[in-house]
């Protein structure tokens, strides 16, 4: 199998001197294409930090991150933006949709950044809305969607750019149990049917139950790495 994510000795500190906290301590991990991986651990264990480093949203103090074989530390600002746009999909705990855009425009925007022609964008937006079960709700703005529906739009947005990896930071944390399960089923289905790689940071047992791999973090280090 091909590694789509590879981290080598990732070190990330916050603060300085007496207040210094080591969030990640020499973390090396390899994630293969098509894995449905959950990074789990108690609060402050470094889950979100690892996810941010993998996604190029933060820079490590030491070590390196390879995504689809490319070392993101060697990329310029624009190259990293382009790389995120084309290779990584993000799903955030707080949905983070653009409030002035409708659901379909939120999904379309990333394709606009990619330079996808208008006709193809429209077609893909329709497909994505169907995929996440939001047919007929494309014209609604985020304020007029429930939390679950907003997170579905976020999943569709993350998928729309046809990325190699989707990074999801506590995606079910703000959802009720039923909505969370429905959303996870959507993501699992996408993972199985399209062989898309998902990496979650989570406390949610529902995600852990569905994950094919669990990476346990404790005090910034990998305590256990188990494949189901």
């Amino acid at each position: 199998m091909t590694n789509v994510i590879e981290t080598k000795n990732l070190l990330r500190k916050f603060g300085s001197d007496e207040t210094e906290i080591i969030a990640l301590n020499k973390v090396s991990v390899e994630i293969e294409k098509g894995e449905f991986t959950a990074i789990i651990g108690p609060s402050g264990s470094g889950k979100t930090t690892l996810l941010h480093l993998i996604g190029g949203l933060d820079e490590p103090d030491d070590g390196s991150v390879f995504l689809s074989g490319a070392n993101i530390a060697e990329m310029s600002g624009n190259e990293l933006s382009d790389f995120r746009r084309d290779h990584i999909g993000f799903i955030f705990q707080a949905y983070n949709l653009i409030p002035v855009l409708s659901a379909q425009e939120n999904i379309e925007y990333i394709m606009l950044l990619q330079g996808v022609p208008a006709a193809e964008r429209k077609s893909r937006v329709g497909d994505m809305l169907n995929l996440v079960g939001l047919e007929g709700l494309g014209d609604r703005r985020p304020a007029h969607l429930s939390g679950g529906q907003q997170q579905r739009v976020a999943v569709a947005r993350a998928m729309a750019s046809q990325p190699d990896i989707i990074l999801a930071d506590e995606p079910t944390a703000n959802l009720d149990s039923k909505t969370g399960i429905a959303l996870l089923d959507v993501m699992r289905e996408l993972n199985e049917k399209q062989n898309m790689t998902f990496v979650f940071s989570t406390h949610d047992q529902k995600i852990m139950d569905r994950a094919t791999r669990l990476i346990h973090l404790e005090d910034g280090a990998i305590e256990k790495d188990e494949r189901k």
Partner: protein
Amino acid sequence: MLTLRIAFRNILRQKRRSLLTGLSMTGGYMLFVFAYSLLEGSYGNIIDIFTLDNTGHIQVHKEDYLDKPKIYKSVQDRATVESTLSDHPKVKSFTPRVFSPALAYGTDKTAPSRVIGVDTETEPTVSRLREKVSEGNYFSTAPDADGYYEAMIGHGLATSLKIGVADEIVLISQGADGSIANDIFVVAAIIGNRTSFDRMAVYLPLATAQEFLAMGGDVHEYAMLIDHRDNSRRVADELAGFLPDLTVSPWEEVQATFYRTMQSDRQGNNFMMGLIVFIVFIGVLNTVLMSVLERTREFGVLRAIGARPASLIRLITLETSILATISVLLGMVLIAPMVYWLSQVGFLVPEPIDMGGIEFQHMKGEFSLQVFLTPMMFMLVTAILISIPPGIRAARILPKEAMGAH
């Protein structure tokens, strides 16, 4: 299109704030256009006073006559000059002139004066000489019953010599051939008033002046009017190409001191107008910065999903430009009737302003595309420039930190 939609919706997101910001830009634009129209109108009036009073839009001389006038530096091949001027489509009218200093006698007084020989027929098509007659009648080329030719003298000279219409005036000067020129003329009219540039002038019919100064058929100057004063430099350059042995000067060079003064005055006024716009845009800058601050999280998300920093700068710039464009267009609709009124009616000043014997009672503005477009371009460029710092601020937002912002 989607980017445009985002920009529009972001403007409408805070309707009241956008409205107030837009109105401040509309007000700034209207003020700018009004002041600009009034200034350009005033400059136009002043330039017309200068050019129509005497200078014309363009002058033709021999060599450096303009800087160092000598009686022998005269235009001899008049036929070529006149056919060139007649053939040029932009030249509306032209007239020849001769000049010479002279000593004037009247009764028992003497005074220095300047003889100006003009073509009695064509001079009024270039200058306001006929309208400047304050006493008497515009002169004729024919001698009177006693054989004396008519002269028109400046108000100052008439006062110095204590002479008036129908009195005799004696002129002594030097002819172009070195001879002493002297003759008696009859005063046909008094020209202008004590502030006129030609208050010490003696106007003679061209042929009379040429004979008096022994110049044959030569002249010192051709003054002309063209289709519009703004084209003077271009037309002068074109004419210079046809008249290689002569010097063709636009009014800006003939009245160089005035022109430089006017330009520096214009720069000062432009600075003041720039200051008005600057003050308006400080408020705009504040609004845009607040807008960026409020949307920190959104910009972080956009950066996270792959928007380049430059695309965020473009978005902010687009939003500000759209608001500025709408504001300016609204301002244009509101101010256009006022500027039109200013150009047609203008302000009636309580006391007429005397400019070299010509009285003006109206301060009028200019109604032209330039009056509307220059402030518009200035406002739009400033809007773009002012939006760049907030845009850079948005572009520098780190996605990771923005995620935690609320």
